[in-house]
């Protein structure tokens, strides 16, 4: 294995989970997410010489997000917009969001499943900042670079995303919280 390949595997492959997590939350489909990540890793590999060092994870996630945007464009052009319809039940988690594999889903709490479903209903631009901030723990500056918007927009989207999530999911926690204060 040559040196470039070794460096790429050592630096990029440890972040495959971050890549697939972002892709699954963006696409809401396991098969689509795999394709997006596969494409993203190959683009990263080809562009690896242009990577200027530093934290590779935001760089990779930028590529993942770009691949997802491209795949959305392809789908729209081909008329393959994934809309739930009467055949949805045949397709399982391909179109309707059903979390990860059936086995691990069965082991997860109701609360976790409900939360997943609520996150999945957030509009793309709010869902992505929330995932990048709360699951990947990235800074506003990094999120701004990945999503290609100014930092102020990241802040207002994050604020809206949290507001929506609070409204849709946090009802019960809110009542507990008011007891606590």
């Amino acid at each position, binding site marked *: 294995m040559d040196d470039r390949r070794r460096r790429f595997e050592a630096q990029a492959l440890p972040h*495959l989970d971050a890549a697939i997590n972002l892709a699954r939350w963006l696409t809401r489909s396991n098969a689509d997410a795999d394709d997006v990540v*596969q494409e993203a890793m190959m683009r990263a590999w080809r562009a690896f010489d242009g990577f200027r060092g530093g934290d590779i994870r935001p760089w990779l996630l930028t590529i993942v997000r770009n691949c997802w945007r491209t795949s959305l464009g392809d789908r729209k052009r081909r008329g393959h917009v994934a809309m739930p319809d009467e055949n949805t039940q045949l397709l399982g988690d*391909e179109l309707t969001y059903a979390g990860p594999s059936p086995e691990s889903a069965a082991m997860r709490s109701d609360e976790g499943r409900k*939360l997943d479903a609520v996150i999945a209903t957030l509009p793309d631009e709010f869902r992505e900042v929330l995932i990048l901030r*709360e699951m990947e723990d990235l800074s*506003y500056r990094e999120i701004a670079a990945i999503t290609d918007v100014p930092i102020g927009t990241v802040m207002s989207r994050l604020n809206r995303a949290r507001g929506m999530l609070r409204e849709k999911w946090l009802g019960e926690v809110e009542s507990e919280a008011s007891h606590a204060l």
Partner: protein
Amino acid sequence: MPCERAQQLEAYLDGELDAASAAAVERHLETCSECRKAKVQIEALRSALREKASYHRADPQLRARIRASLDKETPRPGVLRLFPGARAVWAGAAGGATATALAASLAFFLLMPAANDPLITDITNAHLRSLASEHLIDVVSTDRHTVKPWLAAHADLSPPVADFSNQGFKLIGGRVDFLEGVRSAVTVYRHGAHIVNVFAWADYDEALPDFATRNGYHIVFWKSGNLTFCAISDTSIDDILALSRLLKGLSQTDARE
């Protein structure tokens, strides 16, 4: 009415403020019950997102697939000698041990004969079309006595059909599809959350690999009697091989009857 410092509070909780601004937010929190409440909520959301929501992880198949694609784009002069058979021997598909499958699919990945490319593209596209619900099933049935005659009437082909629910492959129907303009009979199985399309067409002696992977879909080919079969799905290659073994067994039973 939200406090006008609500957004600054979020920046504070996100660790985005310098020490002086952070101290100012902390002082503000002492006097603003609205912001105290917001802080509790944001922290509750944060711990829920980190502890209760799904954090998806890459499965080993995806890892292997990426490595295989990297291999394809990494110059490796010794590779031709490592995998002398670009086309694996036809009859060998029945074995199906994981290692063999993996080696075969890797060899295939590296040295796929260009001539098979259009067919594999066509199969993948037909599979994708069917998943996009444009055309998954013409005859919806879990009963082989419905699906088999329907295929015979509409595709003029009589591939073996059976419901393998007990083995994890539920028959959900059949349809007619065209691959490179050739009519094929398709039986559709459901395996967990995955759809497996099994194409069958009249064998015309084309050279085919045993395995292929395209856009993350695994494809298994085999021949039986006067038909060529191809199963495709996003489930694991082992699962697809298991279904292909069941169907091969069925072909033999059909032939004896």
